């Protein structure tokens, strides 16, 4: 007697079996038992215990996150310097209106941000032992700056609009960078740099 193949059984399970296979499975106890065994095997596979990673890989992923964040920050800082230089030149041209003033403020904020970034890099104490309070403060400031950078980057992909809002973001960034520099200086003193 011809029985169902594994292809037939899998098709039966998926509800895609041929007419012959469906009829045969109804009549043949052997094939019904095979189908049951297939269901049980799959149920057992689903019930296998979860395998846990033997080592924590978060430290490596986190390091990459931080490296990427620093790269982006430097990119913004560098871009800010270039923009500041260009706009400072433009301001020398007489007859600029309120838009010119906004541009000047924007370029100043970007310039300050870049200068503060250089100071932060000068006090880079990654890997040094920090107090928990300092580490938490640094992480908080870096996270807040990352959020602002993310906003600024999104704006970079859109048409340049609402420059007032952009200026506010840059001012917030400068304020946070100042705080970051202060914490970095305190940290450097603490670890004896």
């Amino acid at each position, binding site marked *: 007697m011809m*029985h*169902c*193949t*594994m*292809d*037939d*059984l*899998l098709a039966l399970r998926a509800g895609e079996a041929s007419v012959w296979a469906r009829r045969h499975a109804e009549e*043949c106890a*052997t*094939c019904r*038992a*095979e189908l049951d*065994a*297939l269901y049980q*095997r*799959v149920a*057992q*596979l*689903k019930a*296998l*215990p*979860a*395998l*846990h*990673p*033997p*080592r924590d*890989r*978060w430290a*490596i*992923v*986190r390091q*990459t*996150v*931080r490296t*990427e*964040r620093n790269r982006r920050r430097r990119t913004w800082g560098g871009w800010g310097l270039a923009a500041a230089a260009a706009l400072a030149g433009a301001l020398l041209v007489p007859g600029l209106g309120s838009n010119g003033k906004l541009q000047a403020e924007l370029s100043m904020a970007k310039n300050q941000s870049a200068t503060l970034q250089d100071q932060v890099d000068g006090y880079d104490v990654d890997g040094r032992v920090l107090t928990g309070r300092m580490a938490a403060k640094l*992480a908080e400031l*870096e*996270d807040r700056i*990352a*959020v602002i*950078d*993310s906003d600024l980057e999104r704006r970079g992909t859109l048409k340049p609009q609402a420059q007032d809002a952009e200026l506010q973001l840059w001012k917030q960034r400068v304020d946070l960078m100042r705080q970051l520099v202060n914490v970095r200086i305190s940290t450097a003193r603490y670890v004896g740099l």
Partner: protein
Amino acid sequence: MTVALAVPDILVARAQAGDEAALEALFRAFETPVYNLARRMLRNVEDAEDVLQETFLEVVKSIRTYRGEGYLWGWVRRIAATKALMRIRREQLRATEPLDEEPGKHGMHVGANIDLERAFEQLSDTSRSVVWLHDVEGYTHEEISELMGKSVSFSKSQLARAHARLRRTLGEGEGAST
């Protein structure tokens, strides 16, 4: 292992903004399911660990492109499955892995009283991946064929051959489906 992880939208938004604590929370939520998936598809523990790491580097890099279509776990799982399959393909190119290994390899006798987990381990990487993705993770043959860059019939035949092999290895039934 079935995963039904609901991740709060606010956590995803924070991760998208680059918040390190939120990214770590996502890592902690998904590290075991991702590792489990990779380890079930790959024979080697170190390879599975590497897939875990590569998956989260990709998640960190691309989280801002996630627009909330479907569950986040589905998005992460697809990245993990793709990374694991890429590794299998690399190994196949290097070692010319057979599509299906004969039972009896690895010092095992046909019909020996071994449990399903060990029988599953005896399958080739390709067969194991198809079985795991289809039967446990719930992928369709169409989705698997797309992930693997193969045809739907390849996925179906791999699944049938893998189940026939599991059945024989476990010494189940004698009458049908040979």
